[in-house]
C-alpha cells in the first residue's frame, strides 16, 4: 500500500509517540543539541512509488548478531527504540547475518511492533529454497509481510526474480531489490538494473569508496531506482580513523556535529541516494547516526571539500 501524505504525517506522529514512551527528556538530556532531533527528519522519495523514507536507516550486519545473549538483545532493543523515537524507519537484515533477524523480531515485539517499521530483508540461497527461506525470515521478524525483499549479493537472481515480482504483484511484498557490498559484481548489477523494473539497489559507498558515483548511481537515477548505501563507515574502520582527528569547524555548515554525521551526510547528500544504513548495536551511536537525518546537507562544493579533507588525513 502506498502511503498518502496523511500516512506520512501519521508516521511522524507515531515516531513522536515513541519518543514520549522512551522519555524524550531522558533521551535528549544525553545528547548535544546537534546530535539529533532538531526539526523534521530528512526523507527521500522511493522513485517507483513516491513514498518518502528517512535518509538514515539501520543496518544489522554483525551488530545485531548477538545470539541469545539477553543483555546484548536488550541493547539492540534500545537501539531500535531510539531509532524509531527519532523518526527512523528502515531496518535491514539478511539470512547471512546469523541471529540478527531474530534479534530484530525480538526488539520489534518488545517495543510493541511500531507501525513505522520499514522492513528490508534479503534472500540468500538457491532459487529452489528461496520461498522457504523468506517464510522463515518473515517468522523471525514477526511481520505480516516485508516492505522490501532484496536478492543478497545477486545470489541466484534469475531464479528468484519471477517469484519476487509475483509476490509484489500479489501484495505479499512492496518492493523488490538487489544488493552487493564492497563494490562486488557491479557490472552484473548494472545489467540487471537496465533489464528489470527494480525498486531498490543496495551498494557500498562512502567518502573513500566512490567508484559507484561514476556509473551506478547515475544509472539508478535514470532508471528511477532507489539506492540504499551499506557499510558507510567501512564497518567502523573509517570512523575509527577519523576519530583520531578533530572534526573541522566548517562541518557545522552542514550541521554535522561529529564524524558519524559528517560521513553520513556526505553520502545522503548525493541526489541518487535514498538512504544510508549504518549498523550499530550501541544506542549512543544510533543517536549520533540519526543526527545525520536532521538539519542541512552538504552541497556539491562541500562534498568535494569533504573528500579532500578526509583524503588529506
Amino acid at each position, binding site marked *: 500500500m502506498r502511503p498518502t501524505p496523511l500516512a506520512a504525517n501519521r508516521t511522524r506522529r507515531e515516531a513522536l509517540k515513541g519518543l514520549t514512551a522512551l522519555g524524550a527528556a531522558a533521551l535528549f538530556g544525553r545528547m548535544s543539541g546537534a546530535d539529533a532531533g532538531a526539526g523534521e527528519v530528512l526523507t527521500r522519495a522511493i522513485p517507483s512509488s513516491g513514498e518518502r523514507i528517512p535518509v538514515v536507516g539501520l543496518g544489522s550486519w554483525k551488530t545485531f548478531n*548477538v545470539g541469545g*545473549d539477553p543483555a546484548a538483545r536488550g541493547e539492540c532493543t534500545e537501539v531500535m527504540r531510539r531509532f524509531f523515537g527519532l523518526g527512523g524507519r528502515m531496518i535491514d537484515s539478511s*539470512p*547471512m547475518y*546469523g541471529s540478527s533477524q531474530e534479534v530484530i523480531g525480538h526488539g520489534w515485539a518488545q517495543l510493541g511492533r511500531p507501525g513505522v517499521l520499514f522492513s528490508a530483508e534479503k534472500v540468500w540461497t538457491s532459487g529452489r529454497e528461496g520461498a522457504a527461506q523468506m517464510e522463515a525470515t518473515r517468522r523471525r521478524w514477526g511481520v505480516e509481510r516485508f516492505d522490501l525483499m532484496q536478492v543478497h549479493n545477486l545470489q541466484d537472481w534469475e531464479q528468484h526474480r519471477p517469484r519476487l515480482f509475483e509476490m509484489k504483484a500479489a501484495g505479499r511484498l512492496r518492493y523488490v531489490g538487489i544488493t552487493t557490498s564492497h563494490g562486488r559484481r557491479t557490472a552484473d548489477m548494472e545489467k540487471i538494473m537496465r533489464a528489470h523494473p527494480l525498486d531498490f539497489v543496495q551498494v557500498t559507498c562512502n567518502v573513500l569508496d566512490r567508484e559507484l558515483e561514476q556509473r551506478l548511481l547515475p544509472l539508478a537515477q535514470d532508471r528511477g531506482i532507489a539506492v540504499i548505501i551499506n557499510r558507510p563507515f567501512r564497518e567502523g574502520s573509517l570512523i575509527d580513523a577519523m576519530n583520531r582527528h578533530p572534526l573541522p569547524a566548517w562541518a557545522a555548515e552542514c550541521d554535522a556535529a561529529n564524524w558519524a554525521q559528517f560521513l553520513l551526510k556526505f553520502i545522503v547528500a548525493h541526489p541518487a541516494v535514498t538512504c544510508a544504513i549504518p549498523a550499530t548495536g550501541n544506542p549512543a551511536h544510533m543517536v549520533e547516526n540519526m543526527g545525520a537525518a536532521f538539519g542541512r546537507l552538504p552541497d556539491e562544493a562541500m562534498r568535494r571539500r569533504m573528500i579532500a579533507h578526509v583524503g588529506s588525513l
Partner: protein
Amino acid sequence: MPEWGTYSPSDFPMFSDRTYHRLFELLNRATWPAQITTLAAGVALLVLLRRTDERSGRIASGLLAAAWLVVAWAYFWEKYATIHWAGRHIAVLFTGQALWLGWVGVVRGRIVFAANEGIVARIGIGLAAFAVLAYPLLARLFGRPWAQTEVFGLAPDPTVAATLGVVLAALQVRWSLLVVPILWSVFSGLTLWTMKSPDAWVLPLLAVAGIVMAGVRQLRSGGSEYSRARAGD
C-alpha cells in the same frame, strides 16, 4: 549455495569481537562448575602424557575425545551456532574428531606416549601444559574479563592446542588426528584476525609449531623399528 568466490575472509566473522568473547562468558555461566572438572581432566591428561604404558594412552585418548565432544555440544551446538550459520557443521566436525580419537586412541590403542624421550615429546607435553594451565589466563592477559576465560574441554582453542600437544607427545605422529585441529587453528586465527583481536596469532602459531615438530618426529623416528613396535604398527 552462495557463490563463495565473491566473498572475502572479512565477510565471515558475522559478529563483533564483543559478541564473540561474550559467548565464552555465556558458555562459562551455563556450564559452571564444569570448568573444575575439565581442568582436573586436563591435569590428569598432563600426568598421563608422562607415562609410557598403553593403558595411559587409552585413558588420555578417552579424556581428549570426551573434551572434543563437550566442545562440540556445549560450545558449537549450543552457543556458537546462535551467531554463525556454520556452527552446527563445525559441531559435527568436532564430533567426528572425538570419534576418530576414540577409535585410534581408545579402541585400537595406537596412542602411546614417549614420555620425555626427545625434544619433540617434551615440546608436546609443554604445549599440552600451556593449553590446560596457561590458556585460561590469556583472556585476562589480553584485557578481557575473567568471566570470558577459555578453558580446556569447554572452549575450542585450548582443546585444539592440547590435542596438538598429545599428538606430539605420542611415539608416532598420527597425522589424521591433526587435520581438524589444523583446520580449526586456521579458522580461529582468521576469525580473530579479522576482528583485530590481539591474540589472533596464538593458536595459529601453536599449530605451525605442532606441524613442524610433527614433521621432525616423523623424520627422526617415524620409521624406526622402536617407534613402530611401541606404537603397534
